[in-house]
């Protein structure tokens, strides 16, 4: 057991961006509904289904690899991609996701950057099928 930095992190996205990633985030959320009864002593809640959203940031390089990423954000691309987020070798999270926004930034006095947001898009009937992890399972 050991702490980790992001040095050995990575993002793999089928047919899309390569290895110019600076950071990624994954936000796991579940909505809750208040189902407190009249006789309950405390609040009672029911848990909703899981959601995963997050973001990627990196630099634009001059390869063609980035362009499909832009395509995914367009209306012509509607299928989710297989997204694998790596914290370090062996510690990964994988699921199908849709890229719902991409921001490109180019400044004359700095590097050319991009960021994009994604959200899980899965038809799996079990969470463990929708989101697969290694080590952290």
């Amino acid at each position, binding site marked *: 057991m050991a702490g980790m930095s992001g040095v*050995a992190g990575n993002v793999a996205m089928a047919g899309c961006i390569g*290895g*110019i*990633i600076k950071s990624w985030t994954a936000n796991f959320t579940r909505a809750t509904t208040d189902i407190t009864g009249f006789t309950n002593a405390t609040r009672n809640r029911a848990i909703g289904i899981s959601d995963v959203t997050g973001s990627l940031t990196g630099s634009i390089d001059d390869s063609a690899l980035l362009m499909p990423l832009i395509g995914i954000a367009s209306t012509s691309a509607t299928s989710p991609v297989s997204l694998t987020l790596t914290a370090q070798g062996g510690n990964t999270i994988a699921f199908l996701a849709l890229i719902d926004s991409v921001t490109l930034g180019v400044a004359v006095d700095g590097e050319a950057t991009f960021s994009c947001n994604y959200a899980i898009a899965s038809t799996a009937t079990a969470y463990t099928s929708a989101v697969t992890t290694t080590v952290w399972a």
Partner: protein
Amino acid sequence: MSQVILTTIYNKLLSVQTLGSLYLSVGGRIYQLEGPQGSTMPLLVYAISNEDTTTFMTSAAQSMHTLDCAFTFYFKPDSSVVTAMASEALLFSLLHKASMTPSDVSYSTIESICTSRGVPTINVDSIVIDTTYRIFATKQS
């Protein structure tokens, strides 16, 4: 900060040595950090004043380096200010929006832009012009 980048800048400064060049306008006296003791003016001294390294995650084969490079011209106080400014203009034409050939193949690109051209000032016994350039370099691992 990379020796390759410093060498590349130096090579660029010396790349043109014909009549009317920056090199000849300072009598070939171009130095890093500081000029030698007793050096005569005019001269040009440059130094890296800031360096940022951008690292990417593990599968990336490159890193990006952004440097600020400060150039200082020294001219004799009895020189014409116009002469000093002409020398600075030669540096501007050489480095502003310039793409340089890296001195080592481990770097794929080195580019520069001017971020401050400065103005002539009197500093004790010399006319001084400080000017700053931002250097962008991509290193392949």
